[in-house]
């Protein structure tokens, strides 16, 4: 096991040697790049990375440029997890055969994918990777929409959000289905570690990423990624949105160890009403019309119920 990188403070963390360069084409205020930097900066070990087709990929590897100062691969929309799994299998094979060029290294295998590429089109591939026990980490950059193609709903899009394929209109309040609970689904593969993270809680993030990289076996991380373009907020407010997401408990931060032992890792001192989270985003604007206000109440009830469920699970230690 390689030595865990020691991180004292945010300044030191944010000025770590970057293996993900600032030179990329992501939107100003995009949380993807912040999350990726936080994940990569959590370790000094060598990296084998993948991205699926989507914002992160089209903005960071446009020939003849690359933003990646680490081994990186993109194949398609659905199979970034399996690309890394294949590389990990090759690593094991060459290690056993004594053919690694740098046998003393301890590389980490990480796939990044959006929620569309994880919750929808890449679901089966990720499930396969988790089930087979590859020593890898899959990180979802969860902005709850197909952002790269202009804002279509995914199965991560929450109720009431207006997306281009589930638009709010004269007789519709937008998306009708509840968001898929991917962390639970992935934990149900009995993987050693799954967790939800948010870029504003960087210490919590680093702790979880380091834990995930230290365990043997597949790890699933769901990272909330506020999307300035599709959530419709000012690019300067990305971190404020992340704060609202975690402090309203819409995105509670927790981890599940060995598929069952749940720990809540962040308890907001002052829980913010869900209404404030919704009000900060253009995609929920229509919910504040009189005829849809009941949905805001339902939102709060849903978030409360989920929080209480997480607390009961944590208490039960099962």
């Amino acid at each position, binding site marked *: 096991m390689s030595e865990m990188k020691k991180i004292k403070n945010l300044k030191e963390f944010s000025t770590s040697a970057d293996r993900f360069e600032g030179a990329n084409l992501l939107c100003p205020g995009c949380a993807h790049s912040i999350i990726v930097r936080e994940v990569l900066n959590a370790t000094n070990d*060598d990296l*084998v990375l*993948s991205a699926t087709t989507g914002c992160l*990929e*089209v903005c960071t*590897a*446009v*020939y*003849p440029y*690359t933003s*990646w*100062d*680490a*081994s*990186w*691969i*993109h*194949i*398609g929309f*659905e*199979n970034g997890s*399996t*690309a*890394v*799994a*294949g*590389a*990990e*299998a*090759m*690593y*094991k*094979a*060459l290690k*056993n*055969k004594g*053919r*690694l*060029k*740098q046998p003393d*290294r301890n*590389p980490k295998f990480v796939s990044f994918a959006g929620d569309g590429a994880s919750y929808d089109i890449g679901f*089966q*591939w990720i*499930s*396969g990777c988790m*089930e*087979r026990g590859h020593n890898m980490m899959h990180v979802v950059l969860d902005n709850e929409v197909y952002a790269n193609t202009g804002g279509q709903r995914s199965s991560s899009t929450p109720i009431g959000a207006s997306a281009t394929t589930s638009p709010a209109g004269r007789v519709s309040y937008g998306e009708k289905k509840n968001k898929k609970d991917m962390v639970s689904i992935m934990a149900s593969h009995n993987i050693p570690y799954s967790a939800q993270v948010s870029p504003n809680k960087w210490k919590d993030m680093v702790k979880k990423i380091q834990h995930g990289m230290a365990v043997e076996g597949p790890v699933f991380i769901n990272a909330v990624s506020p999307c300035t373009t599709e959530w419709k907020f000012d690019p300067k407010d990305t971190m404020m949105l992340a704060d609202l997401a975690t402090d309203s408990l819409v995105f509670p931060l927790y981890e599940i160890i060995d598929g069952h032992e749940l720990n809540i890792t962040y308890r907001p001192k002052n829980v913010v009403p869900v209404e404030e989270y919704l009000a900060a985003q253009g995609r929920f604007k229509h919910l504040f019309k009189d005829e849809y206000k009941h949905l805001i109440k339902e939102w709060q009830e849903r978030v409360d119920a989920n929080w209480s469920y997480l607390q009961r699970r944590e208490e039960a230690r099962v």
Partner: protein
Amino acid sequence: MAFDKMELKDIEVWDGNFAAAQALRQCQIDVVAAYPITPSTPIVEGYAKFLADNYIEGEFVMVESEHAAMSGCIGAAAAGGRVATATSSQGFALMVETLYQASGMRLPIVLNVVNRALAAPLNVNGDHSDMYLGRDSGWIQFDAFSPQGAYDLNFIAFRVCEDHGIRLPCMVHQDGFMTSHTAQGVETLSDDVAYNFVGDYKPMNDMLDFEHPVTHGVQTEEDWHFEHKARQHNDLMTKVFPKIEEVFADFEKLTGRKYNLVEEYDMKDADVAVVCMGTSVETAREVATEMRAKGIKAGVVGIRVIRPFPFMQIAQALKDIKAVATLDRSAPGGTVGMLFNEIAGSMYNLEKRPMLCGKIYGLGGRDLTKAHLVELYTELQANVDAGKITTPLQQFIGVRGPKLSFL
């Protein structure tokens, strides 16, 4: 080496699947990512069993679909090692997206395709529909006519596709059941001789070289996409044949078994010829010999390398022939068969063009009998005697009901 070697007899009785599995063992594949599908399953089962019995050292990743199988192979190949898998039919169809990605990313993967029909209607038997589906995917495609071919061509495939001047993935085709499940005598190589022929894998742009990080699978739009595709095509058209011929020659030196881009049989003085692939080649050769006894100068052209397509070699083989029939084993979907098209294209600029007609046969595992071929050669000779094509350009052979012909 930590694994055990296997003692083989000079001639083993193997079916095509086992022959391919043995070749993969002897090539010491580092990673196989695979998903089972009839009739190719025994190839990857074979690898798994060799692994379980310590006859190979590597990783077998049994994934959840053929798409994931090729995705895993791409990741493994980009990481830097020898990679192979096998599939058929629907699995091949599911893989198609990743086939283009593998070739566009210039990754030397060997895919054994045990040819089988495509649904609907669902059918597990052999025809060439899957092979045809891959023909624009930018892979090199070899066609084995027998278990011996399935064995030999795997070694040849690795030598060709892993060459740093080539770096293109490679398919080795064999006919479902007729080759894959029919045991025949296969002349073997010893483990050492086989491995030495293929050689150690030499990584290039490998993701596991952490001193030289690489970015695989980039985005290009109208600014660079065309150049990438053109370069890949240029390599297919100009570099692959010389390399294949060099490897064929080395293989002949080693084994005495000679392979050619185009396998000609009795073509030197032939008047009539059929062009075909797979197990039909052997049947056609047998009938051609019998036709000669009846006074019809018959020959056979077997296509060994389907992609890149040997246009010039075909034109050379057919230039003095009077009538040619192509045998396509895939539903042509509203046009002429692939071979008809390619052969017509290769002969079009010849000074004297043979008469050409196309036959569709064997779909979903329907037998092509010697009687069918006798009839075909007789028809070709009748056209020669009449000095013109007297039959429709496209006919279905061996299908029930009234005679089916078009054009």
